[in-house]
């Protein structure tokens, strides 16, 4: 027992030492601040899409983000999931000009978009995108809500298993879009970069604050604020990154109910069978 105490004491001391050491020393780790948590309709076991919100988010993407960011894994036909009719989607797609070809004469040509087309990129290629944006091509947004997720740290990441926190990505996008601020004294922000403590890879990022109050006009009366825009577009990007999220969760609930009932029945069967064994011997 003594040995156990000594060794466990040593382990604890080592771990504490590691923590203290990491805290006092070293370069700042990014992001400087953990994402702020927003309320998401798609969080939790019974998560579902807020269709209105996704439509507003699409609008924000379309009117603001799409100027620089592509959304190449999302096809127009997917938009039916956002509550639009087939005709609405057809009209929406037709509003885009899509490069196609070659035709019978060997020429490439532009034609109106079809529902089977994907969101066209705002730039012809990555080089053009980089050239137009000070050398850094704006990333594709299709998977953004899953491709950025700041580390949660110990012991938070253990609690997450039970609280089912999986909205790190949309929380990150939301925090970043609403997190632009003046840099505090002592933080050097490079020329052309913008301070944002939520940015995952440094104190500042190349993207200028994209949203401002009133920049997008909503038709459903939702507040036209940066906060609301940021929330809506983050929810939309979560849908874009994981279109089957709600289907997944509702199937998951059924699977869970089945497995738990099945486990209970199996356990009772097992008990019964093993009890028979004891009787035989008695």
């Amino acid at each position, binding site marked *: 027992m003594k*040995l*156990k105490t000594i*060794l*466990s004491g040593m*382990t604890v001391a*080592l*771990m504490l*030492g*590691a923590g203290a*050491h*990491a805290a006092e*020393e*070293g370069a700042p780790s990014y992001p400087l601040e953990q994402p702020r948590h927003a309320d998401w309709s798609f969080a939790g*076991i019974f998560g579902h899409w807020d269709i209105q919100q996704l439509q507003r988010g699409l609008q924000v993407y379309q009117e603001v983000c799409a100027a620089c960011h592509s959304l190449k*894994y999302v096809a127009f036909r*997917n938009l039916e999931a956002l509550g639009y009719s087939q005709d609405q989607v057809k009209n929406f797609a037709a509003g885009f000009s899509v490069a196609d070809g070659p035709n019978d004469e060997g020429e490439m040509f532009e034609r109106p978009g079809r529902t089977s087309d994907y969101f066209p990129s705002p730039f012809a290629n990555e080089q053009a995108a980089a050239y137009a944006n000070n050398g850094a091509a704006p*990333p594709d947004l*299709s*998977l953004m809500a*899953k*491709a*950025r*997720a700041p580390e949660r740290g*110990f012991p938070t990441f253990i609690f*997450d*298993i039970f609280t*089912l926190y*999986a909205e790190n*990505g949309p929380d990150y996008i939301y925090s970043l879009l609403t997190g632009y601020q003046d840099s505090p004294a002592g933080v050097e922000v490079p020329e052309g970069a913008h301070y944002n403590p939520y940015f995952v*890879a440094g104190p500042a990022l190349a993207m200028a604050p994209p949203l401002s109050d009133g920049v997008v006009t909503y038709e459903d009366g939702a507040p036209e604020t940066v906060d609301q825009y940021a929330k809506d577009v983050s929810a939309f990007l979560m849908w874009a*990154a*994981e*279109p*089957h999220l709600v*289907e*997944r*969760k509702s*199937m*998951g*609930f059924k*699977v*869970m109910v089945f*497995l*738990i009932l*099945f*486990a209970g029945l*199996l*356990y009772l*069967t*097992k*008990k019964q*069978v*093993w*009890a028979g*064994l*004891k009787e035989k011997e008695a």
Partner: protein
Amino acid sequence: MSAGHSIYTPKSGFMKWLDNRLPLPRLIYDSFVAYPVPRNLNGWYTFGGILSLMLVSQIITGIVLAMHYVANSGMAFDSVEHIMRDVNFGWLMRRMHAVGASMFFVAVYIHIFRGMYYGSYKNPREVLWILGVIIFLLMMATAFMGYVLPWGQMSFWGATVITGFFTAIPWIGDSIQQLLLGGFAVENPTLNRFFSLHYLLPFMIAGVVVLHVWALHVTGQTNPTGVEVKDMRKETVPFSPYATLKDAVALVLFFILFAWFIFFLPDYLGHPDNYIPADPLKTPTHIVPEWYFLPFYAILRAITFNISIPFTEIVLIDSKLGGVIAMFASIAVLFILPWLDTSKVRSANYRPLYRQFFWIFVAVCIFLGWLGSRPAEGIYPTLSLIATIYYFAHFFVILPWLGWVEKPKPLPASIADAVLTESKRMAVSNPNPAVLHQTGTQS
């Protein structure tokens, strides 16, 4: 099967006819129906069955995924997105496969630690244990190559780092690395051969699993007392329905955990960077392997110094090679574990000192895993080195030493004896969960 002669009797005329020509039904009957199992096995002994089912699940989902996946560096990432978005239930197949890989390792680590706790590797089960270590190695290779296939940033850079290890081997290292990569860097040929091998290895695992189960059925299972079965009639039960039902309950409970991650936390065990397509020009800030490799990754990075001939400048083993040797040795040591443990007593239940060292060892492995997830700077390499030294000391110093100094508790005369005294004690005093844990639940 030494555990008893076959008691299979074919019932119908056809079965008799078949039994004289290909006694496959007899083999199945003897192995999975009549096969005698100690009756005092507890829940920790159900992970073998769970692992077999996980292997089947991985192979089935993998085969379906391979129908839609494109092993080409320009198309791999897009094809995975196609599976996730457009293939019917593709998202489910992919989540089951990716989360399944993690759950496979959860189960295998519990299975390995169970073997260590109850001394399952000891005479006469050394070969059974060694086959298990081979399966573990094959699993690691399979999982690593599978993680490369989605061709995200972590896929690419993980492959670059891991194949880079091989260059540490003197003289032939570079050639081995080029053979693995199919070129001088991770590129399309790498992806192609990894896909091919990722498809092949699971079937090799299945083959070794057959040997593993065969070896198990020759020696029979251990049990929490560590005492061999003496009275077949009293101390064992037929595999079906007794063990099958117990295994089924555990399996479904395990599947609840599995489903929890598939449906509600599918990205929890992955890395967000792998949703960014592979980019050879952009190195991620922290290249981290999947969680199940982290302890070994920590051992790899723990060796930060060259080993030289004393008082000279001649470097015998540079830090890179040292790290690679340490990492491979940390797995290789498992092969000789049956001969490093000098104690005659199997189960930790009767080894008061070993029991404590076992749990310290588990804690050190978890600690190493945490260190593997930290950047290699500050105090972490030092802590990794300390933990690595302890890891090896456990095998090379503590285990041999314990066999000499430890005074084991008196062993029960037989399984029946242990079960009997236990149930008497339980009847008298309040049931104590710790006691339950020691002998397993019989009811």
